[in-house]
């Protein structure tokens, strides 16, 4: 067994090698608009064997490569290797002019276009949609308002019931917290400001990470994973200003998804209208999206085909750890495989109408 001295030695050796590479699964950019891009992944020698493609929607304020962190720690790599046709949105970095982008712009215009672009490449004109964290909130809103091209919905640690969103809900509902003043001052809300509010959720997290590092950094595999995750954790993007204001006002304060008053570009986005197969995944030690906040989705939707997967672990670790490769990823793959065709989904789809 090794100890902290060995860890310090390993860290010193590792310093010269720089940060580990991330997002290495081969991919093509199949569409681009403003700052966002649609990526399609491939594995050498593997042809997609499933009919329905999968669209991954990461959080708007984090980089997409958390879903493709490193070889062996990549949900995308794992899915592609098993014959899934995988697409992922890269939201890019908002420019100063994107302060005017609203929730509806991102959800309806951008996410909607991504869904249609993926659906267009599928024989049935539909796509499985997986939204992670805030991406799950976007995917849920979109599916509720425009279900046409969505074969199924997976809400992975996605906040839905904002009344049960913990300290973040309390903070954003504080009367002296003026979201308009922040947006007016900064335009796009700077990521360090948001990072600070996440730190507020668990102020001892940095100290815990340091202790874990001292304890295990002698293990090269652990150290690589740790550095890759930290690289991702410190590579965030700012929140488009108007979108942030909508997010706080309509979701954190108004809790419009659960109240049934949410709209997207003027169309009702009622959870009760979601009737496609739906899977909610929540994590026991998730301090960012508490279990009750995520699982509330299942209480509101109409779909008879709904599942809940509760797993141990935290908001990020449970998605990228080695343990995820044993439980979460195979379960997701099996869930999609069982709903690969219209017959399996139990839904007769009209041909895509082109309505937007």
């Amino acid at each position, binding site marked *: *067994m*090794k*100890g*902290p001295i060995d860890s310090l030695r390993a860290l010193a050796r590792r310093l010269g090698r720089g940060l580990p590479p991330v997002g290495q699964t081969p991919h093509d950019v199949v569409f681009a*608009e*403003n700052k966002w891009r649609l990526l399609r992944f491939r594995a050498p020698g593997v042809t997609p064997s499933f009919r329905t493609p999968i669209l991954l929607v990461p959080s708007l304020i984090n980089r997409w490569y958390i879903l493709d962190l490193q070889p062996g720690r990549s949900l995308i790599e794992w899915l592609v290797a098993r014959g899934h046709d995988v697409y992922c949105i890269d939201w890019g970095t908002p*420019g*100063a*002019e*994107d*302060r*005017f*982008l609203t929730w509806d712009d991102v959800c309806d*215009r951008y996410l909607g*276009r991504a869904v*249609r672009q993926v659906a267009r490449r599928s024989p049935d004109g539909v796509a499985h949609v997986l939204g992670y964290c805030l991406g799950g909130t976007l995917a849920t809103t979109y599916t509720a308002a425009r279900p046409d091209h969505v074969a199924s919905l997976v809400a992975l640690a996605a906040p839905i019931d904002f009344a049960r969103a913990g*300290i973040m809900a*309390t*903070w954003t509902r*504080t*009367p*002296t*917290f*003026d979201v308009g*003043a*922040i947006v*007016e*001052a*900064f*335009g796009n809300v700077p990521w360090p400001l948001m990072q600070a509010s996440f730190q*507020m*959720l*668990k*102020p*001892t997290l940095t*100290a*815990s990470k340091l*202790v874990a590092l001292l*304890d295990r950094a002698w293990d090269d595999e652990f150290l690589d994973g740790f550095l890759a995750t930290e690289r991702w954790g410190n590579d965030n993007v700012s929140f488009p200003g108007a979108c942030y204001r909508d997010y706080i006002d309509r979701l954190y304060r108004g809790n419009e998804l659960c109240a049934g008053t949410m709209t997207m570009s003027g169309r009702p986005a009622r959870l009760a209208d979601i009737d496609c197969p739906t899977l909610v995944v929540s994590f026991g030690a998730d301090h960012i999206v508490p279990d009750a906040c995520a699982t509330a989705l299942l209480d509101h939707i109409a779909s008879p085909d709904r599942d809940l997967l509760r797993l141990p672990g935290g908001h990020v670790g449970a998605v990228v750890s080695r343990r995820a490769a044993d439980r979460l990823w195979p379960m997701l793959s099996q869930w999609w495989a069982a709903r690969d065709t219209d017959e399996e989904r139990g839904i007769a789809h009209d041909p*895509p109408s*082109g309505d*937007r």
Partner: protein
Amino acid sequence: MAASNPMNPWHLWKQSFGAWEQATATYMEQVMSNPAVLGPAGAMLTAAMKTKAATDRAIATWWSAVGLPTRRDQERSLHKLNQLESRLLDLEEQLADARAAR
């Protein structure tokens, strides 16, 4: 097997750190969700934001008074261009759908 020995100093220190961390995290969560903390924190943040916005507005007013486009003007123009690009992409999609339907 020194580190696995429960009497190992590092192991003991980790145990005490774990206990401290758990107690502190619970305490901090209570402090951070206390309206007596959040209220003044929100007020300070809002005041700082309003001061920054007022300063930016004053600079922009002076800048536009000499006939130069402000940062906000440029942001608005770029945003309009992005919206135009999106509309064009909408039209392309509608055309593709119409062609496919024929």
